[in-house]
């Protein structure tokens, strides 16, 4: 495979993965959880690196996943025991986990060794460095997410729209929410090395918001959102290959943001343009 094809395929898979999960974050008004999880992944990535002693993708992914779940658990703890508002609880965990990550990163850098090379690309993303093995991993993750969505579709749908009703029905709401957090954390970690810690949150939210303007119903929304995510991924990768200095991550995010703007303005019925006219 040519490098460009690899990158385009990888960003398409990532876009589809994030796009398929996005609706669950957006509909539950948990969009910024993605922001928290992506920042909280940093210490996990560092610890994964320290344990494996090399830039081994499975170790970094596992570390990031565990850190993300701990972060989500700590937010619940703060909310359960104090009257601190949810946004403050998220901000506390986001910033202190990131601080821990920065401290660990500096420790790794000070202890030297060539092995740490490429670790910072995890932070800021470097799509061009994507390898065929990364694409394989992304396909496996996409298949896993697809399987999970299909298996628990009904409960996930209930949780997305009315968690209190789902609880009253005796459905496993907490388990579904943890499952969503875990899958989202995996998708975010997979995306970190492509678009970086800050831009990953947009990749999760933008396709879902855009898709919501065009369709009703969860299934069409998830499908369209995955499609739009993949489209933004591919076109971002292709556009960024046209000029030096056009980093892939930011271009993908700008394309996705453009899709949102178009959708909010021009989508049939919900579009603002039709309202005003």
């Amino acid at each position, binding site marked *: 495979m040519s490098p460009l094809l690899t990158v385009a395929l990888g960003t398409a898979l990532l876009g589809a993965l994030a796009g398929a999960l996005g609706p669950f974050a*957006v509909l539950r*008004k*948990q*969009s*910024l959880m*993605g*922001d928290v999880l992506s*920042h909280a992944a940093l210490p996990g990535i560092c610890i994964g690196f320290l344990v494996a002693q090399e830039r081994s993708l499975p170790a970094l992914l596992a570390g990031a996943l565990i850190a993300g779940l701990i972060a989500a658990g700590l937010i619940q*703890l*703060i909310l359960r*025991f*104090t*009257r*601190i*508002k949810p*946004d*403050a*609880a*998220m*901000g*506390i965990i*986001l*910033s*202190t986990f*990131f*601080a*821990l*990550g*920065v*401290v660990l990163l*500096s*420790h790794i850098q*000070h202890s030297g060794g060539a092995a740490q090379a490429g670790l*910072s690309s995890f*932070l*800021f993303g470097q799509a061009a460095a994507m390898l065929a093995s990364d694409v394989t991993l992304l396909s496996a993750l996409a298949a896993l997410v697809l399987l999970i969505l299909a298996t628990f579709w009904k409960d996930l749908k209930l949780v997305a729209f009315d968690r209190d009703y789902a609880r009253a029905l005796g459905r496993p709401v907490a388990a579904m929410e943890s499952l969503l957090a875990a899958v989202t954390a995996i998708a975010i970690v997979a995306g970190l090395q492509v678009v970086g810690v*800050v*831009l990953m*949150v*947009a990749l*999760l*939210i*933008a396709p*879902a*918001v855009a898709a*919501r*303007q065009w369709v009703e119903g969860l299934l069409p929304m998830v499908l369209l959102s995955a499609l739009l995510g993949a489209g933004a991924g591919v076109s971002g990768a292709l556009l960024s290959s046209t000029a030096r*200095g*056009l*980093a892939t*991550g*930011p*271009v993908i*995010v*700008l394309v996705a*943001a453009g899709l*949102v703007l178009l959708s*909010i303005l021009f989508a049939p019925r*919900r579009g*603002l343009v039709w309202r005003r006219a």
Partner: protein
Amino acid sequence: MTAFFANPDAMILLTGLLVALAAALPGCFLVLRGSSLMTDAISHAIVFGIALTWLATGYISGPIQIAGAAAAGLLTVLLIEALTRTRRLNNDAAMGLVFPTLFAAGVLIINLYARDIHLDTDTVLLGEIAFVWLDTTRIAGMDIPNAVISLTVFAALNLGFILLFWKPLKLAVFDPDFAALQGLRPGLVLGGLFALTSATAVAAFDAVGAILFVAFVIVPPATAYLLTQSLAVMVTLAALIGMGSALAGQQAALALDVSIGGMMALMTGAFFALALVAAPGKGVIATLLRRRNDRLAFACRTLVTHLHSHAAGPRVDEENAITALESHLRWPRRQIRNVVLRALDDGLVRREGAMLVLTEMGAALGRETVASVAPLIPPRPQDQPQPAPPAA
């Protein structure tokens, strides 16, 4: 004095203290208002402001750059509110869309046009407090670090703003509708607060980076919030906790040879964790103890009510024996032990051989409980008044 300003460690600490002070002051109001994550959004979006200002004017530092970045911060707030008002998406999604987009645009501008100057995303996100003492301006014969100068200005501005607009800010945070009725323009003071926060973020990010600045804005105020009910005390405590974190962070970073800015921010988290676990009244330990105490008090009341309802009955010897509680109240032995001990301590019951007998106080509590629940319980057949036996 000259020696003081030439000492790198002293300058690093001073910078950290000033960041902590300047961040905690507006932070308290942002945390109370529920706008904590707006700080996160602003601190990322200023990258766009910095890049655009550089493109338009060529300034990479100084007042013009700070003004440009502050404008970008305000733009972020306004864009998020405008998007939310279209009612096509929720506030959290709007926030999660706007700041990465502005950040992406800023990064692209930097990548495309500013490759050769000192402006890269690593520095913006992470900062490097260890080098603040290298970049100085000569004032009154002393080389004072630029970060110290700008942060002193913003700490003073933030303090002045908060003192000057204390009442409108307080009302805008706790009761914006009432503030609007009073003609206090809550939108305007909050706008000022966001603008000052953005400008402070620009001044601070050279030192600690955008995300670690967020830690100083959110975490010390949230910690102080766990420790007090008074706004004035909270603001003071937050500033002190932030500065304590800067001091402890620098010491720990020097000892462990790790990032100083990261360690300072991590220390705010350590203080928060301490308060979360141990804060009097609102901490986890205090909450667990209070819940246990409430459960025990309720169980005591149940015990007293049980004893009271059988005290005048025919089978009092059987019902009110300690050994009967296990089967009658369905409590495990441990629970019985704890409850009876508590009831004895509180002077609600006393032991008479195998029997538990209510004291005056216990009987009063029993009567009160029965009276308070009586209207809620439908009468049972055996509770109906029996016809008086015919007179002999």
